[in-house]
């Protein structure tokens, strides 16, 4: 069976679901953050697949430009998020979400 757009989209969907499962289930802040990266990457895969399989007459590079921007934003987001985690760890000595409940009602 020839590989088409659907194959890539299914891979992307499963990867997104895996990342979502990690964010919900894992309680370690760093691992949750890595799962977040997984979700961003699955969106990138879907966008690149769409740009590859865009109809004739368009070169379909807009999707790749979008992926380029997403990678940049993800890098900025990772740096800020990890700095926040380090600052939090300095005050609380823990990177575990169940220890961080002081804003709970």
């Amino acid at each position, binding site marked *: 069976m020839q590989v088409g757009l659907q194959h890539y989209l299914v*891979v992307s969907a499963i990867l997104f679901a895996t990342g979502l499962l990690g964010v919900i289930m894992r309680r370690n802040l760093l691992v949750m953050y890595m799962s977040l990266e997984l979700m961003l990457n699955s969106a990138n895969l879907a966008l690149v697949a769409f740009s590859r399989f865009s109809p004739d007459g368009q070169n379909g590079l807009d999707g790749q430009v979008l992926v380029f921007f997403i*990678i940049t934003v993800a890098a*900025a987001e990772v740096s800020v998020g990890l700095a926040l985690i380090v600052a939090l760890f300095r005050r609380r000595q823990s990177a575990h979400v169940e220890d961080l409940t002081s804003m709970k009602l």
Partner: protein
Amino acid sequence: MSNYMGLPDILFYVFAALTLLCGLLVVANPFSRSPVTSAMFLVLTIISMACLFVLLHAFFLAAVQIIVYAGAVMVLFVFVIMLLNLKEEERRRIKTFGLVAGLLSVGAILTIFIKSIFGACDSSCCTLPLGTVAAPTVEGDTHALGMLLYTQYTLPFEVISILLLVAMIGVITLSKKDLK
């Protein structure tokens, strides 16, 4: 012709399986719960996803993916893990409610995704076989991508650079010793 499986198709299955397996091992590794293991499997996921990008003829993005993600972001992750000096995570009991709710919502979202993918593709607009897509040039789309980035997408490109500057200042402020 439809049953013929060329080398790119085989490679797709190999790298898709590798991506999904390593992605699953990032989230739920039965042997180790250390964040370092998760980070290493995330590197493997990213590299095999770069291979999928190559199969999709996005050579520039594959290179960027490896340089930025596997090179910069994952080094940052590993560095922070080292800095925090996390002890081997003691096995806390996973709450049954959280597990059930998580699996339920993930299953629901996955069902919606798969259903919409196969529902939308009945209209035959997105089932283009690879043959009907214009053959890429040898050097790839890097030149065209650069042209697009500096003509049509100049403003977003500049805004992104400001975003990076803001992120840099934010990180420097956050990591000062006496954070109020």
